[in-house]
């Protein structure tokens, strides 16, 4: 009797999670993230969870998170890309040289509105071509990705060096710098509008998925579960925006702005930063990559190839071309990450993106991407990047010595994979 009762309680909570159809792995990652945040917040006497720190944490995460979404595809297809940090540097160098040297030589002066878009386009093209080339070496010439991108790690780092003669290139174009984070934000009103749009889209997405299932007469979750899902989404979106809006622009910065406009600042005037454009870019990347993964043939083939390359091939999928596409996507994302990283610094530096390959791979793996291939999620990789960045900046705030910071991050990576292996074994999941 007592046995039966003891068994009933956990099974009820498991049923609850099952009804909501929440990924337990996601729940675990969110749990880990919350624990990290709370521990650091206690250790820093509440300085960790201030709007200011959350804002900084967010913009520091963007560059690695953008690349991590692409690394998911690479690892899912059973490859690896060790060259992302170096590729970021080459793309950043190309974008910096385009705006400070190539375009001015063609008659486009500093400050011309065409400079930023052209430079960014050149960067994206560079990333796509180099990524695609590496993918071709892997897919068509059958050189292991580990070797191709290990070579790339050296090659592209030094191509970047060569392009810039090893010099720091800057200051970069003003419009370009808007993607850096604090230098370009939506402001409070814009951010609230964005939040409302986000909430509406979330609700529509949940509801239309339900409608599609009803149309085909599949079983659906109870209505309360759907509404709970929408509510959680809404609270997260609104809460996140509220925090970013709560981080106020320092009054001396506002003072200067009013002065520049020839006015004086009204008494008690204040303004919040709101959502940075770089975060907007990450959100856009996350949405596009998730749609590609779940709703396109390309995504279906990426996961099928990772699950069973022979089956994919026999089903008529061109797995070689697929490899080229996956690495080209990775290259484009390196360029976007290079845009955010150099814009944040306001210049291109020779060591930009150094060791990012490790952070990116770690983010993807901590986010639940299986190195054996076939399994991984975009949101998981972004959460993984956030967890890594929180650890790193939290330890810096607490005053952990630099060597120990890296030792702990390395240890956490290995531990995360171990936990994942145990989780998979327990649940029998792939």
């Amino acid at each position: 009797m007592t046995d039966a009762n003891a068994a009933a309680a956990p099974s009820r909570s498991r049923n609850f999670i099952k009804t909501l159809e929440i990924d337990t792995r996601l729940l675990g990652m969110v749990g880990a993230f919350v624990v990290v945040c709370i521990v650091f917040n206690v250790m820093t006497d509440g300085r960790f969870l201030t709007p200011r720190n959350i804002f900084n944490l967010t913009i520091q995460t963007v560059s690695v998170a953008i690349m991590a979404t692409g690394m998911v595809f690479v690892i899912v297809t059973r490859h690896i890309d060790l060259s992302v940090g170096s590729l970021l540097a080459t793309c950043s160098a190309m974008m910096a040289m385009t705006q400070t040297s190539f375009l001015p030589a063609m008659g486009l002066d500093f400050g011309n509105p065409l400079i930023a878009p052209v430079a960014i386009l050149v960067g994206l093209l560079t990333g796509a071509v180099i990524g695609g080339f590496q993918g071709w070496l892997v897919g068509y010439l059958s050189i292991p990705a580990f070797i191709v991108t290990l070579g790339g790690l050296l090659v592209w780092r030094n191509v970047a060096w060569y392009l810039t003669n090893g010099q720091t290139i800057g200051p970069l174009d003003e419009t370009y710098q808007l993607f850096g984070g604090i230098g370009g934000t939506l402001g409070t009103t814009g951010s609230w509008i964005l939040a409302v749009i986000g909430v509406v889209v979330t609700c529509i997405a949940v509801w239309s998925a339900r409608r599609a299932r009803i149309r085909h007469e599949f079983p659906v979750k109870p209505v309360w579960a759907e509404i709970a899902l929408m509510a959680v989404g809404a609270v997260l979106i609104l809460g996140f925006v509220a925090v970013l809006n709560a981080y106020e622009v320092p009054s001396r910065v506002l003072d200067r702005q009013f002065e520049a406009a020839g006015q004086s600042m009204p008494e008690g005037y204040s303004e919040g930063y709101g959502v940075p454009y770089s975060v907007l870019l990450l959100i856009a990347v996350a949405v596009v990559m998730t749609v590609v993964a779940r709703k396109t043939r390309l995504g279906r083939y990426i996961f099928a190839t990772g699950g069973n390359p022979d089956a994919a091939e026999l089903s008529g999928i061109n797995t070689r071309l697929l490899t080229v596409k996956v690495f080209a996507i990775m290259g484009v994302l390196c360029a976007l990450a290079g845009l955010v990283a150099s814009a944040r610094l306001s210049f291109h530096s020779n060591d930009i993106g150094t060791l990012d390959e490790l952070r990116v791979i770690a983010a993807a793996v901590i986010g639940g991407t299986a190195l054996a291939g076939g399994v991984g999620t975009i949101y998981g990789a972004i959460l993984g990047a956030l967890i890594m960045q929180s650890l790193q900046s939290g330890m810096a705030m607490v005053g952990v010595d630099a060597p120990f910071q890296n030792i702990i991050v390395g240890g956490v990576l290995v531990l995360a994979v171990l936990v994942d292996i145990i989780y998979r074994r327990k649940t029998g999941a792939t």
Partner: protein
Amino acid sequence: MTDRSDTPLVEMRDISISFGGIKAVDHVSVDLYPGEVVGLLGHNGAGKSTLIKCLSGAYRQDSGDILINGKKVEIANPRDARDHNIETIYQTLALADNLDAASNLFLGRELVTALGFVDDSAMEAETRRIMGRLNPNFRKFAAPVKALSGGQRQSVAIARAVYFQARILIMDEPTAALGPQETQMVAELIQELKKDGLGIFLIDHDVHQVKRLCDRAAVMKNGELVGLVKVDDVTTDDLLGMIIAGKKPQHLAA
């Protein structure tokens, strides 16, 4: 059932293929008529899988011709084979373990919405429809196929062939990993598909099963064709003799 007056559905003429000096298939000719099941027998390594892989587009023969409905065709890849309505159920089940039944059934031929996105609910609906016919007990539509039993996986692979209206079906040891009940299910399915007029190549180890399910049997040894016989003309012992000794039985030898 078998209509012998027509041209054969498939004719493989004088097929040879070798891998680095090893003649995996050595001048083998077999044919297949609509509504007929032809069994392929032979030891491990006899060349059965290699022969049918030339038909399914996984390999390209070094020499020899393939004719479909009497017309010579080039089958360079699995896509070409599909265009000729040839479907294959591979020995090592060609399923992506991490995807669900519907994604596997439609792999490479996804249904898409007007905007070009994969239409998961439509594919699941079609999968439910066809599985309702082939394997009414099948329930695990949302789970990755890794979670399925051997028989359930096999029914997904068979559903793929049936759904896309194969006219030529190749089954490479479809019951090797199955229990007796599931084997029976596959056997019944073969009978049903045969009635629909499909031509089926069935590779199997079990001579009793071949005798029960097939109209004719081709026996291979060391890449060569030992003989192509009507199963009603031979006993299981005759078939075993052909497999082991590589000789046609006395009463049939020309």
